């Protein structure tokens, strides 16, 4: 099925008379400095940051469903295009998708929050996937290289294994290989 292209035209509406900023078909938005938001996230606990991020992702997933309709039939490119577009409108960076065998890896580039905002970014992805596709997923951070960060979208169990190998010094590529290999052997 051909999905419509992401069209950001008139996605933001600045009501200067009322002093409001609105996203199409969405609630009002607030434009805040990124460092102030980052400071707030650093001051909050991990769960609060996760909850804050999931809420941001749920808003993105809802917008995805509004653009795509049946997200379950959406292709990889369509999801990346529309989800990435929504995250870009939020100013969180550029979304990319990597498929390593049966493993789904989502990466973000040029995030203004930097390494300190990786937890927030992962929580946004988890909220979007849960809202758009109805799956409880865990975004496990694999690595960060400069302004690029990679998240493995998997289950809790898979995320725990990956964290265990990463903490023991196993390279992120090896972690993916082990996960895919173990799953293929089982199946």
């Amino acid at each position, binding site marked *: 099925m051909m999905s419509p292209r992401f069209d950001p035209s008139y996605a933001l509406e600045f009501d200067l008379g009322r002093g409001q900023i609105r996203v199409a078909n969405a609630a009002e938005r607030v434009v805040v400095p990124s460092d102030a938001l980052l400071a707030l996230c650093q001051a909050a606990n991990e769960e609060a940051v996760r909850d804050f991020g999931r809420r941001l992702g749920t808003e993105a997933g809802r917008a995805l469903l509004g653009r795509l309709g049946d997200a379950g039939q959406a292709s990889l490119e369509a999801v990346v295009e529309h989800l990435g577009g929504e995250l870009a409108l939020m100013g969180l960076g550029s979304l990319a998708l990597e498929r390593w065998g049966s493993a*789904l890896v989502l990466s973000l580039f040029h995030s203004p929050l930097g390494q300190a905002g990786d937890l927030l970014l992962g929580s946004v992805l988890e909220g979007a996937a849960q809202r758009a596709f109805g799956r409880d997923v865990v975004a496990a951070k694999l690595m960060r290289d400069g302004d690029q960060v990679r998240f493995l979208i998997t289950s809790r169990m898979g995320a725990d294994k990956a964290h265990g190998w990463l903490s023991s010094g196993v390279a992120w590529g090896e972690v993916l290989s082990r996960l895919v290999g173990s*799953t293929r052997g*089982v199946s």
Partner: protein
Amino acid sequence: MNPEVARLEELLARVRRNAALPRPARGVAPRAAQPAVSTPSPSPVAPIVAAPAPAAFSAPVVIPDPMPAPASVKPPAPAFNDTVDDLLADPFPASSAPQQAAPPEAAAPDAAFAETKEHISGVMPAAVAAEEPEELLEDDIVEMSPIAAAPVEAVVPAARSSLDELDFEDEESAQPTANEEEPPVSSSRSKVAGTMDEALAQAAAQMDEGREVPLKTPPPESGPQAAMPPMPAPAAPDMDELLEADILPVGANAGPTQEQLGQTIDLDDARGPRLELDHPQVALAEAAHEELEVSLPQREFGGGYQENLMPPPEARQDLDAHLQRVGDEAIAPPPESLAQLPSMQPGASASGMYAAQPTPAVTTESPTQAVSTVTVEAAANAEFAPELLARPELSPGPVAKFIRADAPRPSTFLELLDSSLALGRD
């Protein structure tokens, strides 16, 4: 008649008869002097040669005359110590006859002679014996040749034998040789010839007589002798002869015997020396190509050529092309690659921005129309050495991981999401 008287008379007659006969000179030595003879030769001639007893009274015995031949042949001095038998056998000894040849000094010992007459029995007193020379010089010892000893030998039997055994016939055949001046043959030194003609004549005479000219040691005054010519190096043995000589014939029994016919015969080991061919290989090699090949110039001629030898016309073009290629390879790479690093620039800032530097002057020289040579002038104010930055070492670990994508590409994002959620499940 008493037989003894008759015998004495007969003896006296015989003495008178013998006295009437001419007698040669005799050199009979008294018996007492015989032990003093220094000639150890056991020949029968030796005991009668020397006359030491008269030496005590005659000077010639002690004088080392190089030519003692006349003295040695001269009859001895008066036999004052002769025994009775000697006197009876020869009452008129020849020794007294040639007294005219005695030197005047011979009369001096008359007194001593008178004193020694008491010892006519032959016993010489010790004092007299002590005066005898203890030893004789070599020149005084004369070996008598058969010719010279013949007359003396004729006397010896008379001195030894008794009166009955006297044989006067031998004495008759003897010839007096006392006055002969011919030197004995056995003289240690012969008379030196005065001239060369005499020497040649003597040598010819000796050769005619069949005598072997004795080898004489050259006198010391003969001067330096000519050096002996160097001994020639032994000639190289003929290999063919050696090989033929070393190979011993097997012999007549080389073949099997009658008992060995039809049986296995163990051959003996090869006899004779082991042959080793030690010919130098060089000689064979030289001989091999002596006729078939032409020797190339040796090493000392390597690299040499005639100066007036001109290269062929097409060689000039090849040489030019070669020089052009060498010239291109000799051009150094641009110095910007090493000395113009951004970090090396004096105006380089911490932010990585640096001021642009004027490019070095580049000139082009073209020796030919086809090839250009670029000469790059380095910056005059290049005070810094180039800094070489090496790539940091990589952390140990896999560089790449290839996962076989045998799984079909998921058509929807949801499939991929589900498969990814399935990771890590046991």
